[in-house]
């Protein structure tokens, strides 16, 4: 393997843009290599060698990233801060009437446009459940995680500490993280006792955070709970919506088995944050630090996606598939565009989205634009807004040729379909349809065994059996399925 040479313009050698998809890189390479192969009439050994060198780097995700970074350090990169690559399940569609399915994969990535500046300071509120059930290992580990967080913060960051049981208590009002001794002792002094009233805690946390301007800080409330809250679910949901309107995200972490996963997922989704399932107290610190690191490396905030579709194209479904899977909520805009909030984009944490479009063809043959996708976001350090626009074009033909579906898309869709099967199972179960829920979970189990996830497959089988016998599903089984399947795409590379 040759070393990467950042003085060479590999993109230029292949004649592709810095945002070129792996497919585009491959196609460009295929053409050039045929043209310049030493055995061909126009052969050019030196050029051929360069083409191969460029391709060896750009074809590999890791090498390409390394190369991009080296170019960036040298100041020779023309890095776009927001990139979006589109992959379609087909590039040709039937021109005959009748609906057809088209899958659109969007790989969205943020890169620092220049050398890293001072990061935007964090403005956090830690909202810690200190109900009786937290007593012991749970609260002890939460305390350790909170102390880790305090140690991680720099003096320009802000933090507030709130504990809640039946009522909320502001242990430390939002203050600069320069007096770490006081923060640590406040955390270590938390004593368990009482019930779980999430609303009060969340409200106090939001109050502390929203007192400081969101353009000067990365503002988040971090909620840690292990229990069910009663009767205030709707109030909590509207609080999450309000948080988002104020530019504050909520990271909701559930510990153990007894919390309401649907509520915590909603809090995260409505506020533009994330939810986490922490099955054992030992994982608390690890999950905590990885989320904190994500917040500290945010490049773009308030990332929004909108699609403008041709009249004969309908949006069927929209999902985030990486870093984890979830259905995206539609935010209809005034001008009838379909818009989605994607939250923030952190360094080295690209997002992948999948859209299902149903194309009601019956149009003339030839190339058509099915829609335009636009992504916008705000750079965290300079407040500058950036956007990228992409057209989705396909060719309508009488007899489209057989096309190979890009492997990465198939790979992601296979996992997404399992996630959807089990999500649908819980929904129909809620509605009382036990037969359908059983069969959906069985299908999910079959797929999981096929794909090489026997552990999750077994859980699905066990829960399906319980439903069939008329028993309740276990709270643990459901969480393992929901959070296990939504993470199936972790690590599937581009």
């Amino acid at each position, binding site marked *: 393997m040759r070393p990467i040479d950042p003085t060479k313009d590999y993109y230029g050698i292949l004649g592709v843009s810095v945002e070129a998809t792996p497919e585009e890189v*491959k196609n460009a*390479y*295929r053409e050039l*290599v*045929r043209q310049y*192969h030493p055995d061909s009439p126009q052969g050019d050994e030196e050029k051929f060698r360069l083409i*191969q060198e460029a*391709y060896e780097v750009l*074809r590999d995700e890791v090498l390409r990233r390394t190369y991009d970074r080296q170019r960036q350090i040298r100041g020779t990169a023309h890095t776009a801060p927001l990139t979006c690559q589109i992959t379609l*399940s*087909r590039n040709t*569609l*039937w021109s*005959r*009437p*009748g*609906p*057809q*399915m*088209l*899958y659109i994969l969007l790989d969205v990535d943020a890169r620092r446009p220049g050398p890293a500046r001072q990061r935007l300071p964090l403005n956090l509120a830690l909202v810690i459940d200190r109900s009786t059930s937290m007593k012991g290992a749970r609260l002890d580990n939460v305390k350790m995680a909170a102390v880790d967080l305090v140690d991680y913060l720099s003096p320009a960051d802000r933090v507030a500490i709130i504990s809640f049981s039946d009522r909320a208590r502001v242990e430390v009002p939002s203050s600069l993280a320069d007096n770490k001794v006081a923060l640590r002792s406040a955390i270590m002094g938390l004593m368990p006792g009482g019930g779980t009233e999430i609303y009060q805690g969340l409200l106090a946390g939001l109050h502390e955070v929203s007192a400081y301007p969101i353009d000067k800080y990365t503002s988040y409330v971090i909620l840690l709970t292990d229990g069910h809250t009663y009767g205030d679910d709707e109030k909590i949901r509207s609080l999450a919506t309000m948080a988002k309107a104020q530019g504050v995200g909520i990271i909701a972490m559930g510990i153990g088995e007894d919390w309401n996963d649907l509520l915590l997922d909603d809090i995260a989704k409505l506020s533009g944050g994330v939810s986490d399932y922490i099955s054992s107290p030992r994982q608390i610190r690890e999950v905590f630090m990885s989320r904190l690191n994500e917040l500290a490396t945010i490049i773009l905030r308030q990332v929004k996606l909108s699609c403008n579709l041709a009249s004969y194209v309908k949006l069927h479904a929209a999902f985030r598939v990486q870093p984890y899977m979830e259905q995206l909520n539609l935010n209809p805009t005034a001008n009838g565009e379909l818009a989605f909030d994607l939250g923030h984009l952190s360094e080295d944490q690209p997002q992948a989205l999948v859209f299902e479009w*149903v*194309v009601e063809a019956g149009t003339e043959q030839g190339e058509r634009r099915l829609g335009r996708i636009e992504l916008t976001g705000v750079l965290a350090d300079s407040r500058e807004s950036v956007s990228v626009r992409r057209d989705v074009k396909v060719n309508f033909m*009488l007899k489209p040729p*057989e*096309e190979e*579906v890009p*492997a990465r898309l*198939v*790979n992601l*869709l*296979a996992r*997404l*379909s*399992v996630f*959807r*099967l089990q999500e649908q199972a819980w929904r129909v179960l809620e509605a009382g349809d036990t037969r359908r829920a059983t*069969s959906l979970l069985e*299908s*999910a189990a*079959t*797929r999981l065994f*096929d*794909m*090489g996830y026997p552990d999750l497959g077994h859980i699905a089988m066990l829960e399906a059996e319980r439903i069939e016998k008329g028993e309740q599903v276990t709270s643990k089984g459901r969480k393992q399925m929901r959070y296990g399947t939504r993470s199936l795409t972790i690590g599937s590379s581009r």
Partner: protein
Amino acid sequence: MSDPERPDEIICPSCNAVNIPGTLFCVQCGTYLSARGPLRTEPLSVPEDEHGVRPWDARTSGRAAPATTLEIQILHSGRRVLLSVEREVLIGRLDAAHGIFPELDMAPEGGLEQGVSRRHARIYTRDGVCYVEDLDSTNGTYLNSERLTPYLPYVLSSGDTLTLGTARLKVNIHTAGK
């Protein structure tokens, strides 16, 4: 009555649900609906009969087109496979979850450990000449001792040795009428 000019709806082979054309995973049960149908290549452990011909080869050899048959011997296991190159032959590892069904599946021979990619290389004929092309595999393909440039066709001749990762294959080409 299905209109031959119209794309067909896809009936899921596993649950019979009807999916609109272009659907890749059954909406009802999540089964992969491959564009090429749920056909799976037959197991390739070819019993060595006295003619070295499998039933489907016999059928195709009756046609007018000169049938070229590829005989590939996997050197470390000794398995001999006969393949028709009327259609392209994909060499790789079977991965049903991703819809990869190679004509020559190296998975049972320890293909993974030997560094064979799922889509590793392909062999095809043009105007009676046999070509091999590396499909940008992770560990590369060698023709005798030459490393193939990905996506570039190389002429394949009888007696050549192909190396995929560390797996070595001996190739013999039989053209009908010779």
